[in-house]
């Protein structure tokens, strides 16, 4: 047998493995405050702000199961991993996206983790199961998950976070903050908030920080335990209401309620801030920060 036909026969007979990943490398011109709508349901998405008028998309996509769409105008772009296969049937895309710092982001995922940093515009994101991490000082954050954990570090002026069963952690909180979970725990700390509302059905709530004079902190939970770790010099009018939970305070004795179903009242320092805690069965603890 002659060598050339043999080689051809081998080429036909031996399957050539498909590429495991399709590399992604796209660049699109964009305004400084471009609106970016991004959907990557499975895998991971990292978005970073930079000082260029360009949106750059790199990463990888499993071969043969989807395509990357990226297009739009300088003012509004859409980036989406699209494919005929059901999302849960492939490993998912890994996207690294760089956008102008002032970009406004709308990000969606099913199980893809989302990490965002260096953005000064508005962030609005939703994920069912993915973990969400946001760093920096965006103008505002709205984030929602079903079970994915949410972690925010930085100093956004306005933050709205909601999760069903995920843990929510906020570091460096200030300004206006609303956090809500069903069964996930809430941990907020590091800053001086002016207005905060923390609520859960069953998740524990832990707040460590101060409340600005004239500010307000409102905490509500059905069965989660509440721990407020406040500076010794805190000035606040405190209302503590619970149906059957225990109440303790390192700031001094808490008087009994004046009537059934009425909150107990404690004044700390000059009473310049307003702190309200309500639980059904959850315990309430006021702890002095060391």
């Amino acid at each position, binding site marked *: 047998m002659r060598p050339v036909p043999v080689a051809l026969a081998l080429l036909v007979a031996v399957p050539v493995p498909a590429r495991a990943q399709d590399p992604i490398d796209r660049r699109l011109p964009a305004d400084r405050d471009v609106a970016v709508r991004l959907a990557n349901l499975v895998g991971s998405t990292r978005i970073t702000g930079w000082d260029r008028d360009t949106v750059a998309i790199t990463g990888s996509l499993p071969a043969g199961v989807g395509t990357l769409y990226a297009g739009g105008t300088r003012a509004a772009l859409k980036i989406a991993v699209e494919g005929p296969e059901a999302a849960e049937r492939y490993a998912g895309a890994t996207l690294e996206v760089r956008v102008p710092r002032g970009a406004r982001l709308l990000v969606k995922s099913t199980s893809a983790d989302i990490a965002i940093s260096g953005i000064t515009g508005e962030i609005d994101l939703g994920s069912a199961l993915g973990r969400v991490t946001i760093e920096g000082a965006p103008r505002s954050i709205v984030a929602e998950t*079903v079970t994915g954990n949410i972690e925010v570090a930085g100093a956004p002026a306005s933050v709205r976070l909601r999760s069903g*069963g995920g843990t929510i952690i906020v570091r460096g909180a200030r300004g206006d903050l609303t956090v*809500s979970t069903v069964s996930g725990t809430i941990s907020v700390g590091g800053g001086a908030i002016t207005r905060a509302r923390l609520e859960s059905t069953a998740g524990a709530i832990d707040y460590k920080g101060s409340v600005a004079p004239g500010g307000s902190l409102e905490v*509500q939970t059905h069965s989660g335990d509440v721990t407020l770790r406040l500076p010794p010099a805190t000035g606040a009018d405190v209302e503590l209401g619970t149906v059957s939970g225990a109440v303790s305070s390192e700031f001094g004795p808490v008087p009994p309620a004046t009537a059934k179903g*009425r909150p107990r009242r404690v004044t700390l320092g000059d009473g310049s801030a307003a702190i309200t805690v309500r639980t*059904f069965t959850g315990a309430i603890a006021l702890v002095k920060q060391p």
Partner: protein
Amino acid sequence: MTTTDRMPAPDDEPLDPRLARLARELPRDIAPPADLWPAVRGRLAPRRRQWWREPWLQVAAALVAVAAITLAVTRHGGETPAPVAAAGATALDSVPGVEALAPETAAALRRNLAIIDSALAESRRVLAADPGNPDVETMLRLVERQRLELLRQVGRLPRS
């Protein structure tokens, strides 16, 4: 014939006097036939909208149904958590779009709904024994709000 008597012609040639006279004799106003307007009005009238096909109304109806189920279960059968959890799962299934969610997502929503419904039942039970208790009423409003938010969240989640 003066210039005002004749109609201008494209090439500015004078009109035939007979034609000009006939033109002057034409009526200035022509009244439409008496039965014309109903036909026109019928064509102008907006097509009657099938209001029950509006998507927002379908979602609203589902939420009302869910709220009704919650009230019925938590007012009359709230002593045992199991029926409440089952009602929660049923309530979720009635929300449009839930069938398109990933199975893990739907399962997580059901778990959270069961937790909420147990809390709701507990609040209503205590409130029934101690009507008007402001702490319990506050808790009840909190849990009801969380329940509504959870059901609304279904519509905002991406479909798999």
